[in-house]
């Protein structure tokens, strides 16, 4: 298969970027999207040109490192799934494919398609943890967890922190990410000691990082590679209201 790629090139954070056209030829339909970029980079290196910088790590959809906007969709057209799970057979032969980074103000571009997502780490640092006794693992059944809660917590915990939710959101909001972390811990007894302070602090840091606000368009859940449901955002709203009321009442 042959493709015409229009790829965002940007030297560094300050520089102005632009789309540059590249042609790739004789690509097998079973090549993954990232392998196709690897092939292009090999060719660029052989020609003595600067290869395209892009992020990837596990290449099996579990690490959340790859982050491309392909033809205007975060992680490309094959939802649910990360870019690394996207194959070239999903595209028409001879197609023109536009590749941009995740565009969110809080994710500054480092180079080409590589972005700095440490804003998400700072949200987690604000409260996405539990205070646990260190040492050997406790007996598994010493803290009972209802099955329903465990299932919901597990679904929220599936978030791989890729940031596609914020990238796809018309408002650049990271609500799906933050709400997944908040819900995951709020649903489990281990997360209860910090339940109120966690949601208040994480939302505060999320806002301070310059993410936008949720207007319930649900674009986030449509592109989420971990299939996190936007119902966790409703859960976050409940948790926030509850925590704010308790704080207001002096508890």
């Amino acid at each position, binding site marked *: 298969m042959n493709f015409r790629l229009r790829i965002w090139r940007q030297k560094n954070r300050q520089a102005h970027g632009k789309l540059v056209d590249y042609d790739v030829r004789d690509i097998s339909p079973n090549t993954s999207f990232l392998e196709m970029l690897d092939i292009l980079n090999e060719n660029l290196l052989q020609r003595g040109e600067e290869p395209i910088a892009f992020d990837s790590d596990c290449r099996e959809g579990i690490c959340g490192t790859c982050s491309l906007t392909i*033809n205007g969709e975060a992680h490309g057209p094959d939802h649910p799934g990360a870019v690394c799970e996207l194959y070239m057979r999903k595209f028409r032969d001879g197609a023109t494919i*536009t590749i941009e980074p995740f*565009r969110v103000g809080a994710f500054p571009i480092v180079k080409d398609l590589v972005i700095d997502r440490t804003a998400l780490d700072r949200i987690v640092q604000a409260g996405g943890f539990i205070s646990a006794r260190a040492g050997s693992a406790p007996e598994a059944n010493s803290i009972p967890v209802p099955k329903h809660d465990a299932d919901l917590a597990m679904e929220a915990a599936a978030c791989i922190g890729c940031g596609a939710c914020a990238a796809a959101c018309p408002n650049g909001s990271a609500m799906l990410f933050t709400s997944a972390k908040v819900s995951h811990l709020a649903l489990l007894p281990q997360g209860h000691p910090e339940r109120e302070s966690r949601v208040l602090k994480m939302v505060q840091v999320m806002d301070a990082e*310059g993410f936008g606000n949720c207007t319930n368009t649900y674009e986030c859940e449509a592109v989420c590679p971990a299939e996190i449901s936007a119902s966790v955002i*409703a859960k976050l*709203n*409940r948790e926030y*209201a509850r925590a704010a009321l308790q704080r207001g009442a002096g508890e």
Partner: protein
Amino acid sequence: MIVAITGIILILFVIGHLLGNLQIFIGPDWINAYSRHLHDLGPLLWLIRLFLLATVIVHIYVTIQLAIENRRARPERYIDRQYVKATFASRHMVMSGLIVLAFIIYHLAHFTVRVTDRRFGLLKPDPLERYDVYSMMVYGFQNYYVSSFYVLGLFLLALHLSHGSSSFFQSLGLNDRKLTPRLAVGGRIFAWLLFVGYTSIPVAILLGLIKPAQQL
């Protein structure tokens, strides 16, 4: 959350206002009596009007602020952009809202303050000495331009509410995974029912189904 609560208040008003207006189909006696009842509320009516005005101002002020923050959150736009799930209505709430605001201002000038149509001052009271709201509405809507602007305003209101009337459940956390898609469908049906209900009035008048109760 503030947007959701003020939105609910305004939705309740829109429902009540429609029910009041639909009395035009029952006849002049009903709607003129309804109007008289409202005006007889006196200070209470003004209290309600001020409350609604305050609600509108808060709703707009907060949403504009949110919209500015949202714009800042993505300083560099996508060159290519595809939406998978976000509806047209949900992405253009500010646009539809502001046009509805312009419509409301015109609507108040037209039928409440009655400054845009001089004929409304010439209307004689009805047999029971009440202001003839019935004939005012009929004469008002007989103008094609006026009616088209109303239909346009209502279309955008329905578009606004097709997202807004289910969105507030999410903002207030009053839903779950099963309920959300049903609420979204319900919200759309609700919004377009409102559109049909409201536009039925100018349409009926333009088709000549409702005639003025008095000649000018």
